[in-house]
């Protein structure tokens, strides 16, 4: 369910062009595409499907264009749109072929590590891959909440809005997700036979 958007309170501290003009669709795209891409991957969308998923998200954004204001809660709203599109995508994937999980990797969709210090990008890539691996132990509901809370650092209220639930459900899913993720991390450490 898409929730009605509120206009942001005017805040003179915000260093945006004044008078504040509405962002164009392209500005919204530029500002949000990266985090949507990152989270689509975290949610388990394969490289060969990521364009399709993100296009669907932006078609929804375009339809709701007059409701997007580029405030911090727009981030939660956009991530909520992403969650719904990813759920639909996974559902249709299961319908088409329940065993279709062979990724076709497009070099252009791989993360861009240029312009970073090698150790920094390695640390990030390694951490992202590890977390990805642990997240696979969670079911979709817990995975969504964990990503939004621990990686995107949204508030319980924002997560409730994005997932179409309420804050107490968010808290209970998050508690369960932490336990399961920590267990997955422990299993990983044990199988690796070393400390991280």
């Amino acid at each position: 369910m898409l929730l009605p958007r509120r206009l942001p309170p005017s805040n003179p501290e915000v260093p945006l062009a004044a008078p504040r003009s509405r962002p164009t669709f392209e500005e919204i795209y530029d500002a949000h595409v990266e985090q949507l891409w990152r989270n689509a991957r975290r949610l388990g969308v394969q490289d060969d499907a990521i364009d399709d998923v993100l296009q669907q998200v932006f078609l929804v954004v375009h339809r709701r264009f007059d409701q997007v204001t580029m405030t911090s809660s727009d981030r939660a709203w956009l991530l909520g749109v992403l969650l719904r599109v990813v759920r639909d995508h996974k559902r249709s994937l299961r319908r088409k072929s329940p065993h279709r999980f062979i990724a076709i990797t497009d070099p252009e969709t791989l993360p861009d590590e240029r312009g970073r210090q090698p150790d920094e990008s390695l640390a990030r890539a390694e951490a992202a891959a590890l977390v990805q691996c642990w997240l696979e132990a969670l079911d979709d509901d817990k995975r969504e909440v964990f990503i939004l809370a621990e990686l995107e650092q949204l508030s319980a209220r924002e997560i409730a809005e994005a997932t179409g639930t309420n804050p107490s459900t968010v808290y209970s899913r998050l508690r369960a997700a932490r336990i399961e993720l920590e267990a997955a991390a422990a299993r990983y450490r044990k199988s690796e036979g070393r400390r991280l």
Partner: protein
Amino acid sequence: MSYEDLTGETQEVLRRARLGESMPARHKRRLKSAVLARIALASTTTLAAGQATAAGLFGAAAKTVMAIAIVGSLGAGSYLAIRPVRHHAEPAARAVVAPAEKPAPAPPNIEPPAPAPLRHRVISHRAPRPARDLAAETKLLRAADRALRDGDTEAAAARLDDHAARFPSGALAPERTAEQLIVACEVGTADRAHVDRFLATHATSPFAARVRRACAAVSINR
């Protein structure tokens, strides 16, 4: 369990993963072109129909959309063509990877690029979907849509077949399928399962409403 109850190691991995990976700039541009093309196509075909819902559907965006569509009669295609699409300027390793290849018509003032790391070579070697394909796709689907609105379902079907043959997995393939379903519903050859499958997998597509409308009023083969 609270965040603090996670082990220090897990917390550290999460902290690093939070910073995230970077989306490749070329991927961003390519995706943006595809998104804008789909929006322009969907918007102009919807607005052209003079549907009462059009204004409400697009609201403040209509102006942007029309601006995209009005830049040249090709709409999204022309719009995309004026965007910086520099396939020949970027592949740093083109000369290294394919020295025998006919040189790309690069502007003469572009300096020979510095040797790129292997990873970049792989990326630049891959043929990207050129913007002109998108322009051609848009043009074909526009023509199909016009024919359909003029009641010439035969011509519309021919354009759509043409699109399917030339761009089987083109950026606008979902829009083609939608138009094909609309044609099939109008001439009474639609298959209910196909329609349902499209509506289930493209629930968010701007075309879904049109398919639903076109296919609601007519009998559909079961």
